[in-house]
């Protein structure tokens, strides 16, 4: 596997292109917007400072780095995070703001491993192979977690007329 270091322009391009989904991914793990932005910025600042040599695809590295940093944060702030339920990270089209909140609440109820595949697939627009590679799991596992996640979400969002 090749090792690379990114120049500043590439880091900024990655941030512009994938910042939203990476933030959503961090939010899905720590449920708190300020903390998630801190995590996202920590990861990118390390890249900007060129402290990091990346193995493989930069985007996959970013998901792994976000995950590790978020899990560390979660360990350190377990009590605070239990209830931080106001981190709005999804936005909907006009008139669907409440649906966005309901969807976010339903996502929060999914197990971490199902939610992360769903976020990568829906908003990261990754194939199962790409999501699997980013998460260090097999494509079959990614696909089955995704289907479980989709089924649970549909069930939870029935009151919105989505089933």
């Amino acid at each position, binding site marked *: 596997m090749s090792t690379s270091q990114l120049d500043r322009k590439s880091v900024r391009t990655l941030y512009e292109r994938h910042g939203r989904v990476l933030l959503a991914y961090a939010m899905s793990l720590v449920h708190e917007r300020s903390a998630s932005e801190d995590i996202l910025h920590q990861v990118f600042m390390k890249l900007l400072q060129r402290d990091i040599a990346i193995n493989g695809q930069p985007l996959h590295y970013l998901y792994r780095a976000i995950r590790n940093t978020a899990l560390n944060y979660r360990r350190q702030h377990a009590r605070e995070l239990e209830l931080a339920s*106001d981190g709005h990270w999804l936005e909907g089209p006009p008139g669907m703001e409440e649906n966005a909140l309901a969807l976010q609440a339903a996502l929060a109820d999914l197990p971490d491993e199902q939610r992360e595949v769903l976020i990568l697939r829906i908003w990261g627009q990754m194939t199962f192979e790409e999501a699997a590679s980013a998460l260090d799991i097999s494509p079959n596992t990614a696909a089955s977690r995704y289907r479980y996640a989709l089924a649970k979400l549909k069930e939870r969002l029935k009151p919105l007329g989505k089933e």
Partner: protein
Amino acid sequence: MDRQDDEFEAFLHQFRPRKPKALDHRRTWIALGIAAAVILAIVVPIRVVSRGSTRPSASTSTLTNSAKGGGTDATSDKSTTGHGPTSLSSGGGQAGPHRPNPTPSAATDGATTRRVRVGEGVRPPTKLVDVKPEYPEDARAAGIHGVVILDIVIGEDGSVIEARVIRSIPELDQAAIDAVRQWRFEPTLLNGEPVEVEMNVTVNFTPR
């Protein structure tokens, strides 16, 4: 994947994650802070000199108020001595348990209650007491479930003083309000003074 799944995926695609702050927003804040400090250092002495014995604290408070777009008038002069510089420093987003933006929505003068809304730059306060809602038996029997969304106001002492339903499931609303009313949060401080905090919370009802 069947057609229903495709439709549901299309539904999900209508939503998208919010955009994060610019990568170097801290640097921008620092630059703005330095610029504001320089302007204050230049403008305030000039005004003091030009007005002789007029009140220097008024210009500080005007600058602070205009930054938040609060539209308060000169009647706030009497209680704002010293608040300007403190607000500026807290705007830099330094570390702390909560970082409320200095943009109280109901700010009037130092003696009245101020309220901030959780969102950009304002973290939700830590919940100290959680009470789960009691699932109404009728609703459970009828298989009614889902998410009730409430807009709540947390008082200066950390108790929930207002709760308003913004996404309703009629059979579950009251149970959600009853539970949320018993929650308690860590009081939020703005410039060392307790403030009220407004935010949305979700209460899930999932039949077991």
